[in-house]
């Protein structure tokens, strides 16, 4: 087999470049000393046509934020699935993991790749009727989520533990070497604060699953499941420029067919443009150099793996009916008090439709306040952002989550508007609060309340403490009209365990559906 590595080299270079850009953007998805972020990883979602389509369908409107996705789709109309082979960071990582996962080359049923079309259809129909699914299958969402919630914090933890050990137990000469290195890492790649995430393990397992699939087949996820790849493949069906076998007299030795990492070459050595990701392996490896990239000489091969009519109708019906099943649960009408959405979040219905579950808001959240929801917003709300004040609070002057949201599920708010956006309200638990329950002075909550007029104030009263002495204490109370629910009070309450001042989503300022119990009133 001849080897002409040059085209492959170019492809690898491009993959590395895009991966590097992706990782740099990911690291930059953090506070950079200014209120406005410049360049964050949301770029990758804004060029994602699947996310764009789903978000637009869900809100039945055109979202300007995702306009760049149109350009990617356009390029695929001309070139086919070039993005999957040359740019997609998920694909690059899967390719790179090849040396680790080994090559089992299990023969999977040839009809399996149809699943991706079913998924694509389900996602789009579901989006239109109120079943948000795109975030669970979009490769970028899976990747960014896994990185944000598990891999990046865990890697940071590992590195920090190492340098903590050398700092606290190492000899002085060792610290002369390690401390500058640690400082360098801190300034470049390490997270500023060690973050924690409620769903670190599920997010990691989901990402890991993609690599496990790689054991069975090369690019197994890309060829069988990836709905984004399916969409790009559909766009590239009639691409004028593509890879094709230009020799009618090919004796079909079949080498290319086993070589192809997406199974795009059939036994007759013909290339299927819906699957071909232009990795150029066939160009380099065909002993007779039969494959070439160029303006299509031949008509594309007929659609071989479209959905059957039965599957099409079945999938569509599922996408239409399932949302109504989801709609008849009580919390759709009575919002969950524990579900505090980030400031600028759209009304719940639209929020669920637009949110990609990518976790970028959680990556950028400066106080580690946003966490992936498990079932607090229903099963369809898995991985959506939710503020847990006891873990982290919403920083008063910070507007980063709205800046990185790729689809505008969290609106970009100016600081002044954000400071007037109520995401919930605090209330004092007088059974635990020290000045009430024990006659002991405290009012940490009042001190830290960031609203200029203080949403938490206090009354100075004489009470008896546990020793029976009459003491003067300041007892805090909340002014509802001023409280915006940032949660710093709950976060910093010095009591161990449960806070004595708690925030619930009650009173949040985003529009809600009617929540009156009779369900007749309009919002």
């Amino acid at each position, binding site marked *: 087999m001849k080897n002409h590595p040059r085209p492959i080299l170019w492809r690898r270079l491009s993959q590395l470049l895009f991966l590097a850009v992706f990782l740099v953007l990911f690291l930059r998805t953090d*506070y950079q*000393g*200014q209120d406005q972020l410049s360049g964050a990883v949301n770029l990758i979602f804004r060029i994602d046509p699947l996310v764009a389509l789903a978000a637009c369908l869900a809100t039945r409107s055109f979202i300007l934020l995702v306009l760049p996705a149109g350009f990617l789709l356009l390029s695929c109309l001309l070139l086919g699935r070039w993005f999957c082979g040359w740019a997609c960071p998920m694909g690059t990582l899967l390719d790179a993991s090849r040396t680790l996962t080994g090559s089992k080359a299990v023969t999977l049923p040839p009809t399996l790749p149809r699943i991706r079309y079913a998924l694509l259809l389900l996602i789009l129909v579901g989006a239109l009727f109120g079943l948000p699914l795109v975030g669970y299958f979009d490769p970028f969402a899976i990747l960014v989520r896994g990185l944000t919630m598990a891999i990046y914090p865990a890697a940071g933890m590992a590195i920090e533990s190492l*340098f*903590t050990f050398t*700092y*606290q137990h190492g000899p002085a000469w060792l610290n002369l070497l390690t401390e500058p290195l640690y400082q360098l890492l801190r300034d470049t790649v390490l997270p*500023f604060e060690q973050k924690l995430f409620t769903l670190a393990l599920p997010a990691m397992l989901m990402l890991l699953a993609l690599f496990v699939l790689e054991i069975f087949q090369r690019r197994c996820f890309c060829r069988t499941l990836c709905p984004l790849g399916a969409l790009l493949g559909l766009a590239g069906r009639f691409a004028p420029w593509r890879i094709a076998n230009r020799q009618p007299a090919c004796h079909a030795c079949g080498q290319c067919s086993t070589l192809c990492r997406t199974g795009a070459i059939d036994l007759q050595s013909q290339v299927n443009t819906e699957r071909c990701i232009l990795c150029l392996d066939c160009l380099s490896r065909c002993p007779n150099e039969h494959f070439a990239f160029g303006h299509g000489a031949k008509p594309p091969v007929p659609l071989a793996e479209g959905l059957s009519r039965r599957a099409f109708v079945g999938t569509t019906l599922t996408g239409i009916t399932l949302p109504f099943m989801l709609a008849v649960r009580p919390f759709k009408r009575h919002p969950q008090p524990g579900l505090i959405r980030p400031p600028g979040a759209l009304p719940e219905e639209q929020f669920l439709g637009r949110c990609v579950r990518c976790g970028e808001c959680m990556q950028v959240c*400066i*106080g580690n306040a946003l966490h992936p929801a498990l079932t607090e917003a229903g099963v369809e709300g898995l991985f959506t952002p939710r503020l847990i004040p006891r873990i982290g609070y919403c*920083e*008063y*002057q*910070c507007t980063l989550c709205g800046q990185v949201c790729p689809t505008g599920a969290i609106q970009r708010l100016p600081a002044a508007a954000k400071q007037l956006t109520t995401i919930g309200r605090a209330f004092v638990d007088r059974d635990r609060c*020290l000045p009430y329950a024990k006659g*002991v*002075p*405290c*009012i*940490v909550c*009042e*001190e*830290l309340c*960031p*609203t*200029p*007029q*203080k949403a938490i104030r*206090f009354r100075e009263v004489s009470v008896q403490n546990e020793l029976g002495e009459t003491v003067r204490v*300041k007892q805090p109370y909340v002014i509802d009209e001023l409280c915006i629910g940032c949660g710093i009070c709950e976060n*910093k*309450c*010095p009591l161990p365990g449960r806070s004595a001042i708690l925030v619930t989503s009650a009173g949040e300022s985003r529009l809600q559906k009617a929540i009156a119990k009779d369900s007749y009133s309009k919002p």
Partner: protein
Amino acid sequence: MDRRRFLQDAAFWSLSWSLALHWPFSSTMSGSVAQAAPGNLFLAQVGMGKGQDYPQLVRQVVALVGGMTCFVKPGARVVIKPNIGFDRPPEMAATTHPLVVRTLAEMALEAGASQVRIFDRPCNEARRCYHNSGILPAIKAMDNSKVRCDYIDRRKFVTTTIPQGRVLKSWDIYRDALEADCYINVPVAKQHSRAGLSLGLKNGMGVLGGNRGQWHRQLEQNLADLATILRPTLTVIDATRMLLRNGPQGGNLRDVQINDTILASSDPVAADACATLLFGRSPDEIGTTVTAASMGLGTMQLNRIKRIAVP
């Protein structure tokens, strides 16, 4: 010295000293007016001055209490501990003015400091506080490798026993502060509903690790106990802008009073006591000052404090 001589001397000095302290003939008038009393009766000096050129003002005021060379010996490791507690711009008076911090760093270098470390453990997110208080940009602009304004490094908290502590027996304290040869405390003067006022003693909380909120239960005693092991060499109180209401973070310019005043003293309690007067309050209203004075950490009696104003 024989026994007789010793007893005579002891009797003489204790008599004269107690007379000096409780001089029956000196006026007992109280109030904010500096009292004319013989110099040897003073237990502390506080320099203070007013002016709009803050760097110059800092230099003048520190010169009044002896100048930086009194506090910083050549080769000393200096810690400057401003208040960077909140994510507020300097004009909101929640944090120490960056020019004050920067001038002190310059003065420490001029006095021969081998290194100057500036830090605080903020209540809000550290990066936002360091940037928006203007302190990090001001120190970066100095571009001097001896001066560093670093974020708190969690690894550097050392569990420290406090032998003289009455309620505080041990706590995690920042290593840089403990190891400093010269510890310059630079609080901003502001209202604080738990402590009454947040001044020098309260500013000590920025070197603490752990759950600092627990301190509020016995704030006064905790702060005094802390001051037994971490006594500032020099306290410079920034009252250039004073937050009068809704402290300690404010957020509204209406609550801020421009005062253009700076105080300095080697006595942390005296510095706090004099700064209290700027708010029109009396030092014995402020629990932290009273408790620290009762522990013998400094002087709060105004007639024992020599107040020197910038001419």
